């Protein structure tokens, strides 16, 4: 009897240690209270309006970036593609998050945002628009973008928040996660968040 109890306790401890290790590999924060994003009006990469309304009804992962970013932004987008693939093994297809690339450098982004984004996945959504609207969208996901001074060639960099915002189906900022993302651990983290969100929604009905 006691031996059995020890065995159960040992197994429980091992499982706890494993889940802790998995959680530890995701650098993120889940907010106790999700904050609704503000209203903003942007366009998706096909020119269709993209507002906070488009965020409703499904989960979204939003990252800020710009198309003249050849290193970090593509790295994170490719990384997110792997995360979503892993997540597809864990949650129902209708609960899979949309990946939204919020392009913060509209002068240079407008022309090539579609090509830039769909190279990582045909379902990824590139979004951009007027600077003021981009600012509002950024505020909603608790992110910033700062344009640096141009170099002598007229080229400039844009410093932006590194975190990816996790938006729930009520268009609220539910969590933020920081790259790089280990695909399986991040998928576990998001699957847990999505299942809990679904349970809470169904529970409140």
């Amino acid at each position, binding site marked *: 009897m006691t031996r059995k109890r020890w065995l159960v306790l040992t197994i429980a401890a091992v499982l706890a240690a494993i889940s802790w290790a998995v959680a530890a590999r995701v650098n993120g924060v889940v907010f106790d209270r999700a904050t609704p994003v503000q209203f903003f009006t942007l366009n998706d990469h096909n020119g269709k309006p993209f507002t906070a309304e488009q965020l409703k009804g499904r989960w979204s992962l939003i990252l800020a970036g710009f198309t003249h970013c050849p290193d970090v932004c593509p790295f994170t987008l490719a990384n997110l593609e792997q995360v979503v693939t892993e997540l597809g093994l864990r949650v129902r297809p209708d609960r899979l998050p949309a990946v939204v690339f919020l392009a913060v450098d509209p002068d240079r982004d407008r022309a090539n945002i579609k090509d830039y984004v769909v*190279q990582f996945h045909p379902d990824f959504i590139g979004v951009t628009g007027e600077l003021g609207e981009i600012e509002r969208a950024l505020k909603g996901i608790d992110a910033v973008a700062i344009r640096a001074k141009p170099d002598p060639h007229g080229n400039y960099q844009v410093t932006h928040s590194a975190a990816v915002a996790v938006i729930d189906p009520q268009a609220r900022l539910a969590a933020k996660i920081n790259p790089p993302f280990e*695909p*399986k651990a991040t998928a576990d983290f998001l699957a847990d968040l999505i299942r809990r969100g679904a349970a809470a929604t169904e529970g409140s009905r």
Partner: protein
Amino acid sequence: MIGYVVDRRRSLAIGAILVTAVLQVALASAGEPVTAENAWIPWAPPAIKVHAGYMTVVNRSDVDQVIVGAHSPAYERVELHQSTVKDGLSQMRAVDEVVVPAHGRVAFEPAGLHLMLIGAKRASVVDGPVPIVLRLRGVEQVAVTAVIRRRDGGPSSGHHHHGASH
């Protein structure tokens, strides 16, 4: 008079070729103190003209070597860049030089130190070779042939198992 000028040009050209050949032999016999391994450029759609270049630069010599610049016939300009995350902000800045320590190596890799390849002159083709020249302090240059590859994604890719951390 005209013939003289042409001859002189021709002899200059032949001279230059000879000097280059001698230098190449000299470099090769010196065992190429600095080389670049696994150089690659992530494939990008034709509309995207700014690319990144990755590689590992190896210094087999007894002295530190300093990369002070780079160029490529396939791009208008090549710069040395460093991506960093500081206070939650993702930043990219140009660096003037990169020191490769004696008997050491420096990795140009995603989300870190990389070559910023600006103004692609032609569309990228998977498996296509791209010549790049790294300029070292002094007179030496390192000829690199980068290969265009599709990105494979996350930090655990490149290893064929998942879940292992570095």
